[in-house]
């Protein structure tokens, strides 16, 4: 936590929104439409978050990347109509001077002073980064999520990347992650990633989904109420069929192979608690796009002391009420940080949060019902796509768990056996989570492994607290007081 140089600056906004993905955009525009003065703080170069991506040269209001035609864009981006509507609203609110949109501003800390909140953001829009305070009476946090990962032998080889990373390369840069690609892991997100790569001309060797296909049929009530989501999945399946991409269910990724780069992966037939012996199959590939669900980014809500819970998918998420209000008065959370549920749910939660933050809560019960329906679908999907049982048994002693500090499972095991029975104790003794990413990648795995090996409860919150939410240099901090008092001279 930074030391405040003095009293906080005078409040500049009624509502500060952090994150301009679906939830944050919906929240900012809903608050703006109700007359609130809004500050929208976002790390991206353009609004849209990880979901609506576009090359950085696209201007506010223009989502067409160079050289990509409208049809190709539409195939990769869902809900573009929603995006254009929200951008249009945002542009008008920015134009009217009631909303400030701060792009390339990475929120790295948040503080509460009485009834106001100050978000500290690193402004990376200029040649020299600097940290700026953004103050308001209420806070809507919409930080989103990133791919959840678990370690497996070979996962540090170049050519292995996250499903979201492959999607970002394609949607944001027009680049296919590789030429011969295996898409594996679990969850509905694997399908759009594979469909996008196939459409872009990559040879998609196969989609290997660890769960049982149609396992969600057991939760048919929730599924039937979300027929449009099924239609979306069907569209991807059609694309994959057209490109003759095999989609295998109960096929679990167990290892990646290669010396200095990925050459092949092994998949095996999944059982309830492991794999069928002898079912292993080796697939040659230069790229693996892998993901096992998502991990919400909880740094900012945790910094403020917001109450959390463990969701159906095992993720640590914020507890929110009917208005998306957290346990800390004045702090609202929308989108994946209160339960991973996808962009449509995030839009609804954002709209409800923005309205409540503006002091004019949503009265339309349909919106609240829609949220309930979408959340039940998300829960059904979580139950149908668990991280496959047995992954902890496949982690060999020399499998790297913490990629930053190069901590192997063997080293972690030693520390657990010596008494470090939770993720925090393990971090202090064996260093998983101590490196550049601060446990964002290995936090889930470390919490699972320490729990499995020691028989102690699974406590992901012990690997989730990070007082500094984005990397910031000492040089930037040193000049902070100067900038924050309004002096914008270059350091």
């Amino acid at each position: 936590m930074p030391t405040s140089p003095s009293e906080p600056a005078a409040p500049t906004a009624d509502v500060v929104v952090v994150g301009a993905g679906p939830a944050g955009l919906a929240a900012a525009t809903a608050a703006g439409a109700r007359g609130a003065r809004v500050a929208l703080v976002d790390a991206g170069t353009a609004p849209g978050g990880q979901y609506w991506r576009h090359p950085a040269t696209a201007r506010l209001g223009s989502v067409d990347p160079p050289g990509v035609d409208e049809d190709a864009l539409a195939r990769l981006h869902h809900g573009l109509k929603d995006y254009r509507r929200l951008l249009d609203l945002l542009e008008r609110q920015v134009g009217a001077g009631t909303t400030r949109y701060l792009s390339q501003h990475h929120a790295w800390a948040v503080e509460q002073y009485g009834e106001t909140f100050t978000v500290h953001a690193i402004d990376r829009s200029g040649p020299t980064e600097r940290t700026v305070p953004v103050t308001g009476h209420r806070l809507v946090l919409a930080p989103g999520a990133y791919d959840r990962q678990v370690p497996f032998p070979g996962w540090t080889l170049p050519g292995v990347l996250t499903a979201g990373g492959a999607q970002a390369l394609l949607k944001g840069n027009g680049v296919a992650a590789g030429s011969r690609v295996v898409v594996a892991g679990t969850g509905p997100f694997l399908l759009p990633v594979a469909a996008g790569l196939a459409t872009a001309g990559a040879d998609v060797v196969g989609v290997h989904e660890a769960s049982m296909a149609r396992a969600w049929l057991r939760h048919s009530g929730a599924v039937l109420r979300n027929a449009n989501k099924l239609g979306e999945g069907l569209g991807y399946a059609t694309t994959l069929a057209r490109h003759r991409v095999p989609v295998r269910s109960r096929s679990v990724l167990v290892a990646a192979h290669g010396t200095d780069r990925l050459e092949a992966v092994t998949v095996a037939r999944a059982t309830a608690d492991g794999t069928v012996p002898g079912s292993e199959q080796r697939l040659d590939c230069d790229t693996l796009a892998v993901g096992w669900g998502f991990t919400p980014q909880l740094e900012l809500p945790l910094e403020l002391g917001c109450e959390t819970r463990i969701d159906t998918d095992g993720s640590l998420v914020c507890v929110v009420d009917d208005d998306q209000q957290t346990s800390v008065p004045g702090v609202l959370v929308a989108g994946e940080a209160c339960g991973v549920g996808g962009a449509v749910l995030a839009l609804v939660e954002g709209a409800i949060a923005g309205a409540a933050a503006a002091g004019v809560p949503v009265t339309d019960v349909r919106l609240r019902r829609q949220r309930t329906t979408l959340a039940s679908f998300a829960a059904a999907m979580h139950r149908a796509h668990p991280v496959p049982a047995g992954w902890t048994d496949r982690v060999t002693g020399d499998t790297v768990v913490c990629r930053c500090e190069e901590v192997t499972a063997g080293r972690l095991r030693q520390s657990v056996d010596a008494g470090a029975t939770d993720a925090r104790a393990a971090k202090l003794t064996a260093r998983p989570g101590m490196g550049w990413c601060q446990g964002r990648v290995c936090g889930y795995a470390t919490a699972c492994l320490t729990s499995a090996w020691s028989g102690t409860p699974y406590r992901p919150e012990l690997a989730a607290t990070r007082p500094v939410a984005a990397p910031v240099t000492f040089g930037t901090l040193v000049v902070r007081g100067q900038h924050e008092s309004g002096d914008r001279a270059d350091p």
Partner: protein
Amino acid sequence: MSAPTTITFDGHEIPFLPGQTVGAALTAAGIRSWRTTRVEGRPRGLFCGIGVCFDCLIVADDRPNQRACLLLAQNGMRLASQEGTGRAHLTV
């Protein structure tokens, strides 16, 4: 469509399109790793692709530890493989 522009990576010219990140331009050129780790000296490149994991660190215009997945390519930018912390020049 804008004309491709170029960056250099360890002295080799690599084309890119405006709006592309350094990581995307290198991937499009078939380059998969540009860093070796501090302890084991193992090769690494893009992993999370969205700024979370810090595996894709690269030296850009003499500044080490830049995330290739976030850094936008600029015409004439000089990129170099990063070894370890990228701060060997500070060793005394």
